[in-house]
């Protein structure tokens, strides 16, 4: 069969060169769409046509997800539930039309869009993806919030549910304020938690990056002094 052999060749060619992260998603969607075309009845596909169809598939998922997320937000929820998703699917299939679209009091759980989907699942044979995909490391979920660590944010306007500030910023702020050892211990705990979650994600060089955030608590003169102090420190580190 042509498409699977062609894709194996593509994968072998693409593996050695370093690629941006979204290229992997495009390659995976290309393979999945090729499998769908096989089930539909195609024997082969032009590369350009396959690439455009896989791009369309990715955009469809994004449009569906975006509308479901906005519907959930309109109802005051951050997590999407089944009703939001069904509403989003109905919104997308409105121009094409579906049974019961004219009835404003229709029940979402009994939507004809869902029924068509159920019929589709029943009719189509299961075709799993040929290779296992390495799951992307959970970067966003691993960063703990202030509330999770039981700490108070250093600035009053910062809410507790936000992820903690980077350790380097905290350290520089403590140095500038001239605080004692108590906070440093907490900082070590935070840095340990952050390092465990990042796990070799950031190379060692990144520790030297400093986020200079001006604390506008004092007068302009103090702010300038802090800025100078930060610049001096950076120069010292560069010297090292």
């Amino acid at each position, binding site marked *: 069969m042509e498409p699977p052999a062609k894709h194996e060749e593509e994968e072998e060619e693409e593996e050695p060169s370093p690629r941006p992260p979204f290229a992997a998603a495009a390659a995976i969607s290309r393979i999945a769409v090729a499998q769908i075309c096989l089930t539909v*009845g195609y024997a082969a596909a032009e590369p350009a046509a396959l690439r455009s169809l896989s791009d369309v598939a990715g955009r469809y998922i994004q449009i569906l997800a975006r509308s479901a*997320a906005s519907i959930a937000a309109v109802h005051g929820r951050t997590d999407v539930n*089944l009703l939001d998703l069904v509403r989003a699917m109905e919104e997308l299939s409105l121009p094409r039309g579906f049974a019961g679209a004219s009835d404003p009091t229709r029940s979402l759980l009994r939507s004809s869009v869902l029924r068509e989907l159920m019929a589709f699942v029943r009719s189509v044979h299961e075709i799993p993806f040929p290779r296992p995909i390495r799951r992307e490391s959970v970067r966003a979920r691993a960063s703990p919030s202030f509330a999770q660590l039981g700490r108070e944010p250093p600035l009053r306007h910062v809410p507790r549910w936000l992820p903690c500030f980077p350790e380097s910023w905290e350290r520089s702020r403590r140095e500038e304020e001239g605080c004692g050892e108590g906070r440093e211990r907490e900082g070590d705990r935070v840095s340990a938690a952050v390092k465990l979650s990042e796990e070799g994600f950031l190379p060692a060089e990144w520790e030297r990056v400093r986020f200079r955030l001006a604390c506008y608590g004092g007068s302009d003169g103090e702010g300038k002094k802090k800025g100078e102090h930060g610049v001096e420190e950076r120069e010292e580190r560069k010297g090292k």
Partner: protein
Amino acid sequence: MNSSSGEGRHDDDSALAEFLASLMDYTPTIPDELVEHYLSRSGFHCPDLRLTRLVAVAAQKFISEVASDALQHCKARQAAPVKDKSKQPKDKRLVLTMEDLSKALREVRKLTVSSIYFFEVTFFGILIYCLLIEKKKKFVMIKV
């Protein structure tokens, strides 16, 4: 009447619950990792894997509809009688070409993407119109 409709509702709800449970056994062609990648990029947050599978299945259905439309165009093109005798007989193999795909997507483009941008365009159109009116007149009564 009421009892039969109640029983009907119960059947529908149980069918939906069964379907959602069966989604965990059914593996959609579009893998979960890919769908989760796109969902996280769009702000769709849900810990339930069944909804992820539902999105994957919906996308699979959409793509298979587009592909089958393109297949119909391809078969129609092959079934058309050959005009030139010198022309080679058409390939019996079905190949997805850009022509067939663009014909199939033309219908979808009218239906899906433009409908979303239509609402955004009308909103901004109305906003700009109101601003233009405000410039001409000093007092604008907007009834909300």
